[in-house]
């Protein structure tokens, strides 16, 4: 049922792909495989939507190491390089056998952070469960009062005599918090220290009493995020990840993963602009030379961004650490805003009114266009990161940088 140890995996790209493909054909449920072979997307989605079947498959997949191929051998992974791992991912995607988007926090953020900072007990308890898809994770970093200044968080964790921690505070922008089993939590443990030095990192069991996620409605009308209220939540010291008061260093590991978090080898190919072109052909907007030039411009820009993602992927493989994730994020935010507006202009009436039930997709893209310039760190923050880390500009003056946290001004 398991693949060979990574040293025995074929070295050539094509051979590795073949080996993974063969393993999938052998292990995927027959009706799933048949639906894939027949190109019957709907049938595959039906199978994937069944919680029982999905869980069963992710268990098989996780045991093989293929769900987390870059993790070390013996800790749920196959120890593959990013480049080789992407070949695995391509095969998984081809068979729609990959883990869903909602596992992003668990697989891309929690796993690597635990790998780097966890105790043996923490690794043993969490990594196999993550690899097999048994746990859903969320991130509890952001706070309403902190915003872009992530380290200015004020959720308090006070250690008690029995060494457990009592946590109180409020988090925000937590996706899947209402469904998650575990959360990556930062809390302030030393308010007398400057803001970066008094934070501790925990792996919070979301079922603990006092943890209350509430949906947060966005301007799009959807509620993909939560606010999470933490009231007298008792967390055992065994849930602490990394040393007391060094949680910011642990968080950096998580944040670097987040910015560089690419799933699979990036390619130059279809993107959002292609969809807009398709739509423009339908609505007749393509006939307008001004819109045509903007569409082709967007197409060029999106392809250039994809090419940049490939370069970033190759550079990451070669171990060169960069703030280049911020470059891509900023470029993507700009493009997303451009496409959001452009999409509405392709509709004859600007997508401002529609008959009941015929809401154009352009509406959702328009309302979501600011997502990437705010979510995951605003474009302003990205510009600061690029300017400071890539170009060596001085940091912004923070008059309170070295002040004890409790003495800082709030607002």
């Amino acid at each position, binding site marked *: 049922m398991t693949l060979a140890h990574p040293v025995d995996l074929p070295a050539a790209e094509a051979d590795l792909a073949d080996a993974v493909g063969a393993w999938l054909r052998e292990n995927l449920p027959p009706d799933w495989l048949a639906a894939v072979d027949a190109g019957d997307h709907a049938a595959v989605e039906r199978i994937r939507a069944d919680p029982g079947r999905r869980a069963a498959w992710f268990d098989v997949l996780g045991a093989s190491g293929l769900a987390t191929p870059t993790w070390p051998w013996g800790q749920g992974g196959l120890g593959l390089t990013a480049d080789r791992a992407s070949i695995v991912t391509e095969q998984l995607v081809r068979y729609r056998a990959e883990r869903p988007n909602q596992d992003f926090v668990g697989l891309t953020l929690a796993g690597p952070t635990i790998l780097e900072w966890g105790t043996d007990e923490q690794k043993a308890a969490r990594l196999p469960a993550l690899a097999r898809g048994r746990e859903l994770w969320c991130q509890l970093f*952001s706070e*309403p009062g*902190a*915003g*872009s*200044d992530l380290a*200015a968080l004020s959720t308090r964790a006070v250690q008690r005599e029995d060494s457990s921690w009592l946590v109180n505070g409020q988090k*925000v*922008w937590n996706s899947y918090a209402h469904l998650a089993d575990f959360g990556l939590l930062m809390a302030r443990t030393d308010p007398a220290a400057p803001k970066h030095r008094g934070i501790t990192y925990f792996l919070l069991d979301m079922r603990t009493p006092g943890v209350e996620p509430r949906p*947060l*409605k*966005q*301007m799009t*009308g959807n509620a993909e995020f939560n606010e999470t209220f933490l009231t007298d939540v008792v967390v055992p010291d065994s849930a602490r990840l990394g040393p007391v008061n060094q949680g910011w260093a642990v968080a950096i590991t998580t944040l670097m993963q987040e910015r560089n978090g690419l799933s699979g080898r990036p390619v130059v190919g279809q993107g959002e602009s292609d969809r807009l072109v398709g739509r423009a052909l339908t609505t007749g907007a393509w006939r*307008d030379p*001004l819109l045509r030039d903007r569409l082709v411009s967007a197409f060029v820009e999106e392809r250039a961004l994809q090419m940049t993602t490939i370069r970033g992927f190759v550079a990451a493989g070669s171990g060169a650490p960069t703030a280049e994730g911020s470059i891509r994020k900023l470029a993507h935010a700009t493009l997303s*805003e451009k496409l959001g*507006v452009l999409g*509405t*202009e392709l509709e*004859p*009436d*600007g*997508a*401002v*009114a*529609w*008959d*009941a039930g015929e*809401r154009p997709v352009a*509406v959702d893209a*328009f*309302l979501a*266009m*600011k*997502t990437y*310039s*705010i*979510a995951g760190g*605003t*474009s*302003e923050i990205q*510009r*600061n990161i690029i300017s400071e880390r890539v170009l060596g500009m001085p940091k*912004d*003056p*923070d*008059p*309170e*940088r070295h*002040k004890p946290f409790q003495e*800082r*001004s*709030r*607002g």
Partner: protein
Amino acid sequence: MYAEQRDPEFGWTGEHRQLRETVRGLLAERAPVSRSRELAEVGERYDPALYAALAEQVGLQGLALPERFGGYGGTLLDLAIVVEEMGRVLHGGPFFPTVALAAPALMAAADEAACAEYLPRIADGTLTAALAVVEGSGVWSADDVSTTADIGGLLTGAKFPVLDGADADLLVLAARGPEGVSLYLVEPGTPGLRRAPMETLDGTRRMGRLTLDRTPARRIGTPGQGWAAVVQAREVASVLMAAEQVGAMAACVELTAEYAKTRRQFGRLIGSFQGVKHRLADMAVRLEMSRSAAYWAAWQDPGTDEFSFGAATARSFCSEAYLQTAQDTIQLHGGIGFTWEHDAHLYLRRARADMALLGTPTQVRAELETTVLAAAAELDSAVPAWPAIEVPA
């Protein structure tokens, strides 16, 4: 059409200031932006009691209508001040479609009987009206009018989206009859008329789809001259919408400046970061340029070339400026600006919807080409556009 403008250009009179304060005060009390949101969220078209009060207490619906039709004989400038204040709080409902679109169309059609019958009811707040011109393409062009009127005056075709079209008490329609495009009046309940509400990006203004199948209608104005009336009404509406947008932009700038003066990050008020300051400054520039364009137009006499030019300039400039301003407002608020509870998205939705209502800025600029060419043809080599700045630093 409207009363002549008052001198001096851009010089506010005490009356202007008084009017602004009255309207602002009334709206602050009875229709702040939270109320616009509330109506939108529950799907209410408007607050009828307030609509009545606007007419009875302040006379806003009839402010710029001639006295012989029950109005107060005010200027378009007065009305611009009113809608600017309404724009600040995203006031929606039937006011704009009635007062800024349908009434100007009725006046432009210059049909005494129709004016005498309907304008007084508009002025006293008992009649709401809508102007139905576009037919799905979004383009304001006589060529795009394919709703037909047969010899018996029966209309057949479809009009959408029509601002307040599904709910207004009176429909003013452009249709193509034997003599060309004319304006027609249809009241709800007329046989062959179907009205369906549409879903909208901007919940503060309703839009509807009208379907007409041999619907009896009353032709108004000179037969075949309807498009000229549409053009005039659209110009008036363009100027008023620009003023409304100035109000909305001003609200966005104030909201954002206020936030930047109270929100603290990295040990400082965010308003002390140039990343915020400079974007805010650009917002202020866009606002002031928009204000100039909107009010310059409002100061011209309707019917003149200057008015037409001002209307187009204001429409092109202000609607693009407003959309950018609304986007920037969200950006500078960060996460909170992205939530449903924050008002930023209401301004964004209105900005996008506005852009589609009276022809897109691109369409307006295409229409301006003739004027631009005429101006270029009069070129002489005189006065530079800006006094030379002699000493740079």
